[in-house]
């Protein structure tokens, strides 16, 4: 997370500079706050989109088998590594032209989605399926084990240092400038927001409108009954893992392009944050996961900008605690329905 911190620090530096310049008088102070606010909003939404994409994997798996897949964060980290390898390979052969970078990113995204889905499918098959009928803690422990396994595997095979990609897409779009503070949105941010919105749309369509999505929702409510209607529950669960991993791979590729580096332990913190996002939004609820992701991203960014960057995680988790005290089912979660 070194690069992430650098990014946040520079954002904070921008805030301080603007504070110094604007001084204390009325409108100017307010309008400068507005600029900082808009800039932080853009940064927060970008970060939130990444959290939201990961959170969907947590929330879907929890919805369908009632298990927290702790390896999901590391699946996300793997996807960033796969994207890095593909990107480096393509640019090594074809150079760093603008068209090539676009092609390399698209290929990185696609291949990362496929490979990561394969990882997730294998994990489900090897580490979770056999334990499904077992006592509740067994798959949880197995998931933690898988998380450590993936982390160590990447550490050994890819090395323990930060892996960078060459800087790409450094251009920004200047939205407006006032009092010496520029509000800008980078191409990377535009890409992240657009790709996230697009994939969420496709994903929503699959879950709501296709037979597969209906089967997933049916398994979520009563897997045994779904099986008695001829639905292959094991396969539906496997597909859920695959879909969650594919979305995590989108997040991983975005993470890589945004921060430019990836490290073998990068799955942990974003993973926990995304899980927090899923709980905040109401675990089991898809719109909840996206909303939770956006909120965690925004809380973190605004807290770093206005208060203290050191305490940003404290802020995010405190708000989670407060929300859960007053709304135990999360923001959009349904109250526990008793199964007959």
């Amino acid at each position, binding site marked *: 997370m070194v690069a992430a911190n650098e990014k946040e620090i520079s954002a904070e530096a921008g805030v301080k500079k603007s504070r110094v310049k604007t001084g204390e008088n009325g409108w100017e102070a307010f309008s400068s706050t507005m600029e900082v606010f808009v800039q932080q909003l853009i940064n927060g939404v970008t970060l939130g989109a990444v959290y939201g994409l990961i959170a969907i994997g947590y929330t879907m798996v929890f919805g369908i088998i009632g298990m927290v897949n702790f390896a999901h964060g590391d699946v996300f980290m793997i996807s960033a590594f796969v994207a890095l390898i593909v990107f480096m390979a393509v640019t090594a052969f074809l150079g760093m032209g603008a068209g090539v970078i676009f092609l390399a990113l698209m290929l990185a995204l696609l291949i990362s989605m496929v490979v990561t889905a394969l990882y997730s499918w294998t994990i489900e098959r090897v580490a979770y399926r056999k334990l499904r009928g077992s006592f509740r803690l067994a798959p949880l422990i197995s998931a933690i084990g898988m998380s450590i396994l993936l982390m160590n595997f990447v550490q050994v095979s890819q090395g323990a240092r930060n892996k960078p990609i060459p800087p790409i897409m450094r251009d920004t779009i200047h939205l407006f400038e006032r009092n010496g503070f520029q509000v800008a949105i980078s191409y990377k941010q535009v890409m992240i927001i657009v790709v996230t919105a697009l994939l969420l749309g496709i994903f929503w369509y699959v879950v709501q409108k296709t*037979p597969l999505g209906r*089967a997933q*929702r049916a398994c979520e*409510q009563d897997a045994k*009954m779904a099986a008695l209607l001829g*639905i292959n529950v094991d396969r539906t669960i496997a597909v859920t893992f695959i879909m969650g991993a594919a979305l995590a791979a989108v997040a991983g590729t975005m993470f890589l392009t945004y921060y430019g580096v990836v490290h073998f332990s990068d799955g942990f913190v974003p993973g926990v944050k995304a899980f927090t996002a899923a709980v905040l939004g109401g675990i089991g609820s898809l719109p909840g996961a996206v909303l939770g992701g956006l909120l965690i991203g925004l809380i973190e960014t605004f807290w770093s900008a206005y208060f203290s960057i050191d305490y940003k995680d404290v802020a995010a988790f405190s708000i989670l605690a407060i929300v859960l005290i007053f709304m135990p089912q999360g923001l959009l979660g*349904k109250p526990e329905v008793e199964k007959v």
Partner: protein
Amino acid sequence: MSNWEKDPILKVEHLTMRFGGLVAINNLSFTAGRGDITALIGPNGAGKTTVFNCITGFYKPTVGRMSLRHGHIDIDAHVEALTDTAGDSVTTPEGSLYLLERMPDFQVSARAKVARTFQNIRLFSGMTVLENLMVAQHNPLMVASNWTLGGLLGLAGFRNREKAAIETAKYWLEKTKLIDRADDPAGDLPYGDQRRLEIARAMCTEPVLLCLDEPAAGLNPKESLELNTLLRAIRDDHGTSLLLIEHDMSVVMEISDHVVVLDYGTKISDGTPDHVQNDPKVIAAYLGAEDEAEVEKIEAEVGL
């Protein structure tokens, strides 16, 4: 020779189910005839629901064989050979034979075409009435959607199949008088409607054998009559054989062709409703008599 001996659809042999030390079903054998309404009756705790759970793949029986046939394949001629193989089915030009105890739960419905309803209703209560019926048609729709790819692209083949599925769903909603509630969450329906919806959902899987666990429980007399009509229509118009567990003797005697009586997991009587009704063992089981002497005493008292 009765229909269930001439033309069986389901043949259960030596079915035994133990839970630890408890024997829920003990060496039970019976057949259900094609086109028959077969009732499985017995006092509480007799093991009726356990039989259903074994047939539909919910439980793996401790011992026993359950063969189900499609078409006119001769069960006795093929079942031994099939049992000796590792397979769960055999298909000949006359039809197919399935060994239900060897099939995973979802295949009992998907391939052997056995559907069931539950004593305590198990609808997908958060989904709409129509969606409940669409889930029941999952397998053909999944194929038509090219495993979601075609569904995602909205290909014509998938759209047409989806329309056909909605038509099937509508047909059953008309039959069960639920068409006005199609877009309501299933959990919001009143109890009697939920019972009928469960039957409609089971029928959407196009079963050859429909197992109903106490379909009349909690229904008022009018609803009970309507249920009888519905069950007869299912049998007569759709060629689906019915196997039902029922406590309401008026329903059992009224609509069933064949009655099997269980007590403490053992079969105590098997035959036409008339035969069973007059069987002293059945009377004893229902009145709770302990031994033969007592049964005779009761028989004398009731004037048999």
